[in-house]
């Protein structure tokens, strides 16, 4: 057998990577797997669903105000709200907004948090001190207050909303990533990378970041529902997206006003949101178990 053939033989056997392993364990966890499936369904319904429905989210059906479900003939599968707008269409479009804010804001938090955490942990010394003191300082700021001030001052703006929320949510991410980086810094493979002449940014990007991804993925899954809740809280205060655009928080808030007359307008969006948040939490817990090296 030549060396080449030997190499092919090993490749055929193949190893299981951390991620394959984790994936298998995740799918074995019933709660997490169910959560994943339901989340996929909700996401697809929110992003594709509105195009398939007979009514759009801002269209008023003057003949069917507060129609009771299921009004199949008219295409109001879950009835209409007090202005005659299709409840299902609004809930799906609201879901699109809420999920988008959740994902974008978490991405912002991810970018800032991982960068700060990895740099602080890897470079160490004064940089570390400075960055972490800043994080400490930010922790004692009533951050929700700042988001509210920003939203009030700059108007209700979708882009600003997720940037502001993201800029608030990165702190814990930075701490977690820094802790992991500190543990990695002394490892041999980092030393090897340094010995072979890798620059600091290159080592952080090629060697540190891929190795902290596990923890980060778990935290991301748990941050998205928090952001969705924060967005709904802003909507409750009247600082969310602008009418006729809507989000789950706004729908719930509108529904709460009509709670006694027409509880359906509260229950439908609240159910969608609650189920989604449940699934994100189950998925996050499942991922944590799946990626925990202690269990292997």
């Amino acid at each position, binding site marked *: 057998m030549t060396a080449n053939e030997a190499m092919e033989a090993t490749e055929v056997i193949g190893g299981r990577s951390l991620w394959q392993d984790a994936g298998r364990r995740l799918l074995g966890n019933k709660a997490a797997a169910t959560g994943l499936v339901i989340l996929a369904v909700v996401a697809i319904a929110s992003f594709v669903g509105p195009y398939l429905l007979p009514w759009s989210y801002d269209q008023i059906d003057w003949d069917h105000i507060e129609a009771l479900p299921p009004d199949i003939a008219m295409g109001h599968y879950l009835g209409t709200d007090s202005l005659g707008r299709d409840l299902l269409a609004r809930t799906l479009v609201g879901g699109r907004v809420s999920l988008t804010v959740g994902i974008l804001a978490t991405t912002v938090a991810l970018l800032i948090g991982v960068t700060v955490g990895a740099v602080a942990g890897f470079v160490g010394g004064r940089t570390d001190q400075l960055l972490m003191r800043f994080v400490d*300082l930010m*922790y*004692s*700021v*009533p*951050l*929700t*207050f*700042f988001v*509210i*001030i*920003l939203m*009030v*001052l*700059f108007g209700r703006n979708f882009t600003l909303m997720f940037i502001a929320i993201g800029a608030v949510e990165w702190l814990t991410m930075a701490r977690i990533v820094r802790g992991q980086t500190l543990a990695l810094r002394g490892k041999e493979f980092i030393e090897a990378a340094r010995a072979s002449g890798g620059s600091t940014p290159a080592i952080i990007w090629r060697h540190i970041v891929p190795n902290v991804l596990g923890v980060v993925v778990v935290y991301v899954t748990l941050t998205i*529902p928090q952001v969705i*809740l924060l967005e*709904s*809280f802003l909507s*409750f*205060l*009247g600082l969310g997206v602008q009418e006729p655009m809507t989000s789950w*928080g706004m729908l*719930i*808030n509108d529904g*709460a006003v009509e*709670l*006694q007359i027409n509880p359906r307008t*509260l229950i439908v969006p*609240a159910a969608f*949101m*609650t189920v989604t*948040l*449940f699934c994100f*939490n189950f998925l996050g817990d499942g991922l944590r178990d799946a990626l925990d090296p202690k269990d292997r």
Partner: protein
Amino acid sequence: MWSTFLRRLILAVPTLWAIITICFFLMRLTPGGPFDSDAPVPEEILANLRARYHLDEPLWQQYLSYLGNLLHWDFGPSFKYRDFTVTALIAQGFPVSLQNGACALILAIIIGVPLGIAAALAQNSPRDYAISAVAMTGIVIPNFVMGQLLILVFGVLLKDSVLHLPAGGWDNGALANRILPVFCLALPYVAYIARIMRGSMIETLRTNYVRTARAKGLSSSAVILHHALKSALMPVVTFLGPATAFLLTGSMVVETIFQIPGIGRYFVQGALNRDYTLVMGVTILSAALIIAMNLVVDLIYGLLDPKVRYDGE
């Protein structure tokens, strides 16, 4: 421990100053002002108003005099509640918010800690799943939905029964008026604390010293109360710092829904009205509260964990 504590205490001053500075310039440098209105106001009146509130002075001068006034507890006049100073508004609202917040936090600890322990002791049993499900529900249902549901059930549906509770209002702090808001405020914390407690208790029960205590033949309750509880409480204590911040946010919602005259409601109205001084006052107070709570957490650490006491770091 004391040196750490002192250092943190000294660090609190520049922290507060940084927050005040950021907040001050953030509010002043953005478009719009407290005297904007739909009806056109004559130029002279506007100028008078601005002079009355010192808004015509250069920004740095306003900033310095604001800082100077803060040093003797003068938060300035409110721009919207014309007859009140911010100090007076806070003095009115803060005790209300503080009482509700403290009640909610204590209630959450009293319920959450035992729930978490109960779940941890029977890991992966039906009891554990039931408690985890309840905890998860408390986390994912936003408190403005929970508040509305509570009002519907106890304020409207049970109107003629003994369980009837007022749907809102404060009535100078009558007990009946406090039950629903405090419960609504506490629920998410019960959930968080139960979850944190469960996790840390499971971890603690696996440690060697707990095994040793068991092997000595101590009863299960003695092991938990005397050996495991102390160190398992650490993560719960850590949570108290952020919890204070969340409580302040929660109070905005709860005070708005239940019409309670606390500072959370002032903050929301103040922000919408561009009442600079009121918003600044509430923000500064909240920041001070969070900083103070973090210091308390440090102290409790020292009491719970001897390592913290001796390390000096």
